[in-house]
């Protein structure tokens, strides 16, 4: 791109802008105050003619920076698509004329608003550069898959099939994971009636025959260094040898353990060999090899079996797993069929509270009923050994019998999945202390020669060298799931995706689907990393944070706050930006107290200069000015859509979209207040448990930072209500105008800021 900058402003007069606003005056402002070298007006800027005019200026007039004063930046994006230029949009339609009444008395304030937006647009574009992207961030195309179970094998095979080399690391001596331990699997094809072959042997063979997949068995990840496109991974093998692999992106498919049935003594586990968990039953079925399944206590064929659903799951007491593992109903159905298929005379009863067989699982459920499996809605209280058999005591919920009992040769507990997610890097101090205490107690008990107490300390899976910790942040209950409904693969570690039951409890069908999707995301991450493009949600963004290290005070706020762990510290304790890990949210920029972090197209300056560009009328004008910093994903569209409904709001506000509340630097607020703004509204997404921030922690961090603004206000002797923090959803199309108007009134009542004109 040419170093020579040339700025141009284009003022549209379509959609009523020409009638409602004095376009000549706007053009004059762009030229004189905005210092735009080219200023043009057009009756219909977004049509072919208008766009051609802009393109011509770029091609023949050397225009590099474009300021379009027309509709919202969300509208007419195809027409105003200039990927090689810096572009700013002054929102005169949705932001001004659609939210103001078309009356004579409103004319002046409406014009004021439009003029300010033109000033702001000019100021913004002057502070911007079209991002060039950094293509020197690594271009390795190999995928690392951690975990050789069904999920990991699927991911490896699918990636290889797409044309990418794979390194597959499995900690045990064989591929297959839990799936290899199954006798049969839940069917995946019509008619969904009978257990099917697991297909594991076939997959293992395919991997063995695939020269594109390099398998490490008995191996773990000793160290993961780098970033998407340039990970360097050390793999420790059992022999002690360490291999190093260059990796583009990573899939963590470390699976699950079954919930420890020893924690369920009331259900008879450990008290009788005839009480097993689902894995125990698979082992019995494998040993039976299609023949009668034998009772562990005496080796006699099982004549009756009871399945206890939700054993240690869906537990509201806090003692066991609170969640449902989702696959266990179908698994029990399948296991009941093992018995019925070999001998229909065997009594098989499934005791459940809610039978959960979604989709075609309903056919599988019906098929089991046809085979004579009995389903009883009940809550199991205890399982007691009773001679060779077991007595299952339960509350029959249909017959409302508190003392119902079933005697069974074998009892199968449907315990749930516990993820193998490594170290919880977000553990609170309290949780850490609890863990340490448990470890110490276990060590002491073992040392004192009493019964050895089991304590398994969590071991890191990835051993990331990241400043923020060695593993992927966990979501809930140890699962590494994404919080997002619309974007299930997004983790907080760019280029590292999780798949399978480590992410969310799931069955084999889902795990395979999940692995395939994760393979795509991993491939996409390494492809984009080598082009310098951002990953979701600002996918394709070529900007990246630039830091002026000479100004850095090593306060570490950026390295601590980055929601994606993108920033490490170098040996001199300066922040080290790994840009292919960066998601371009700007949280680091917002956090930086000395404002040395910026993006080419979004910086303290691009926003700060907009704030300063606004014309602040004097104290006696009765025209207060309120700055709104609005999250561009939710609050800003909500304002746009309010405008589409022609919901009116105060002409005193000036809205600046921000990437995320997390990117808001408090200097903007201080500057605004110093410049004489009478109020500041911050509009960000919901935070907390059900946070809706697309940068996960952005709005939360932003809010925390802004909670300190009170001190600034105090120092300035200003009312605390001069800054208002709002949680805004994209649907607040009616609320938002009302809230703005109420706040504008509040400011009027409060009186004008004393800082005007300084």
């Amino acid at each position, binding site marked *: 791109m040419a170093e020579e900058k040339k700025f141009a402003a284009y003022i549209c007069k379509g959609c009523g802008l020409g009638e409602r606003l004095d376009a000549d005056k706007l053009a004059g402002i762009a030229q004189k105050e905005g210092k735009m070298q080219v200023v043009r007006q057009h009756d219909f800027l977004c049509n072919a003619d208008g766009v051609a005019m802009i393109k011509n200026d770029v091609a023949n007039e050397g225009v590099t920076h474009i300021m379009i004063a027309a509709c919202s930046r969300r509208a007419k994006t195809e027409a105003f698509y200039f990927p090689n230029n810096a572009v700013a949009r002054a929102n005169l339609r949705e932001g001004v004329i659609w939210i103001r009444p078309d009356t004579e008395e409103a004319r002046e304030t409406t014009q004021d608003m439009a003029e300010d937006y033109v000033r702001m647009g000019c100021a913004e574009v002057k502070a911007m550069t079209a991002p060039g992207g950094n293509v020197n961030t690594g271009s390795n195309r190999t995928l690392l898959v951690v975990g050789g179970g069904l999920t990991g094998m699927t991911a490896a095979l699918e990636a290889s099939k797409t044309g990418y080399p794979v390194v597959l690391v499995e900690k045990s001596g064989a591929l297959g994971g839990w799936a290899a331990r199954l006798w049969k699997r839940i069917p995946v094809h019509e008619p969904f009636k009978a257990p099917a072959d697991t297909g594991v042997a076939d997959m293992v063979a395919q991997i063995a025959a695939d020269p594109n997949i390099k398998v490490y068995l008995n191996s773990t990840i000793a160290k993961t260094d780098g970033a998407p496109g340039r990970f360097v991974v050390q793999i420790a093998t059992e022999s002690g040898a360490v291999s190093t692999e260059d990796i583009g992106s990573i899939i963590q498919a470390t699976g699950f353990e079954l919930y420890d049935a020893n924690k369920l003594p009331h259900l008879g586990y450990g008290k009788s060999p005839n009480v097993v968990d689902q894995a125990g039953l698979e082992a019995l079925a494998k040993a039976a090899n299609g023949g009668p399944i034998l009772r562990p206590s005496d080796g006699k064929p099982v004549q009756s079996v009871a399945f206890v659903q939700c054993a240690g799951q869906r537990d509201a007491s806090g003692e066991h797993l609170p969640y449902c593992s989702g696959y266990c109903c179908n698994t029990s159905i399948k296991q009941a069929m093992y018995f019925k298929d070999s001998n229909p005379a065997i009594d098989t009863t499934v005791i459940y509270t809610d039978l959960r067989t979604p989709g075609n699982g309903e056919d599988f459920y019906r098929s089991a009923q*046809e085979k*004579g499996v*009995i389903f009883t*809605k009940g809550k199991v209280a205890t399982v007691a050994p009773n001679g060779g058999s077991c*007595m299952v005591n339960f509350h029959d919920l*249909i*017959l409302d019998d508190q003392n119902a*009992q079933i*005697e069974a040769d074998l009892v199968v507990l449907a315990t749930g999945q516990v993820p193998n997610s490594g170290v919880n890097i977000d553990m609170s101090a309290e949780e850490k202390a609890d863990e340490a205490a448990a470890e110490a107690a276990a060590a002491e008990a073992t040392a004192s020669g009493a019964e050895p107490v089991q304590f398994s300390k969590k071991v890191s899976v990835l051993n990331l060298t990241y400043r923020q910790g060695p593993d992927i942040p966990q979501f809930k209950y140890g699962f590494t799931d994404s919080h997002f409904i619309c974007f299930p693969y997004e983790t907080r570690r760019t280029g590292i995706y999780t798949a399978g039951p480590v992410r969310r409890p799931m069955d084999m069908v889902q795990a395979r689907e999940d692995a395939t999707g994760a393979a795509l995301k991993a491939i996409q991450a390494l492809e984009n990393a080598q082009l310098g493009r951002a990953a979701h949600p600002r996918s394709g963004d070529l900007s990246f944070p630039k830091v002026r290290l000479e100004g850095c005070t090593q306060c570490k706020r950026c390295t601590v706050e980055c929601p994606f762990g993108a920033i490490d510290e170098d040996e001199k304790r300066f922040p080290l930006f790994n840009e292919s890990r960066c998601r371009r949210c700007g949280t680091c920029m917002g956090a930086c107290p000395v404002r040395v972090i910026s993006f080419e197209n979004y910086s303290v300056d691009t926003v700060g200069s907009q704030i300063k560009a606004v014309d602040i009328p004097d104290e006696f004008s009765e025209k207060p000015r309120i700055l709104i910093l609005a999250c561009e994903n939710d609050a800003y569209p909500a304002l746009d859509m309010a405008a589409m409904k022609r919901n009116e709001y105060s002409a005193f506000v000036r809205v600046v979209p921000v990437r995320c509340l997390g990117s808001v630097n408090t200097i903007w607020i201080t500057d605004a207040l110093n410049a004489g703004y009478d109020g500041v509204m911050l509009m960000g997404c919901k935070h907390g448990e059900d946070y809706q921030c697309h940068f996960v922690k952005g709005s939360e961090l932003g809010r925390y930072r802004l909670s300190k603004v009170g001190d600034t206000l105090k120092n300035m002797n200003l009312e605390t209500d001069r800054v208002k923090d709002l949680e805004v959803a994209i649907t607040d199309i009616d609320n938002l105008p009302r809230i703005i108007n109420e706040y504008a009134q509040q400011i009027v009542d409060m009186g004008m800021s004393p800082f005007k004109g300084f």
Partner: protein
Amino acid sequence: MSANQEMAAKYKNSFLKEVEDQVEMGEWVKMCMQCGVCSGSCPTNFHPGWEHPPQEIFMMIRAGKREEVLTSPSMWMCTSCYNCIVRCPRKLPITHIMHGLANYAHRLGVAPKNQPTRAFSTLFWSNAIATGRVNELKLSMGLYFKDAEGKINIGEGIKKGLAMKDVALGLLKARRLNPFEIFGGHKCKDQKGIAAMLKKARELEDKRKALPQSGASR
């Protein structure tokens, strides 16, 4: 058997198997998923005679509550409106199962003795097979002159008869009721043939469903 074992035996599938073998359409019982749409759809479900609605009976069968099921008056309450069959999401032939269960309980001789539907059905059956045709006059007389306990009661019969006299007169006028039917009445043509048919049917039924030696255990 200890009390405990007896209790536990209940959820064994033996009674379910018995029902599957012995009861017409009994093999459908296991297909119920306890949604309750059958009892909700039943036009007579408000009647206290429905001690256990169909889905509960199915659950009781699965729970091995043999005695309670077979002696229950519930399945005798079914009026064969077929609402439940139409609405059952699992397509269970509930009406038929109800009748099958009632029939089975009757065969075993454990059905509630004075259950009105049972009494009527018994009367109807013996009336019908006697001549191969239902003699309506005898059938209604037979019903009128019995009390709630099933004993003959002349006074009550006259009272009931008088209460219905307008209907009877109407039927007479319309030539739908012939008082001389009381003496023998119409017969169907091939009496022997009917008897042979019924005998054969009985034989077939007995062959298909050998009565179990004793109740629950087989």
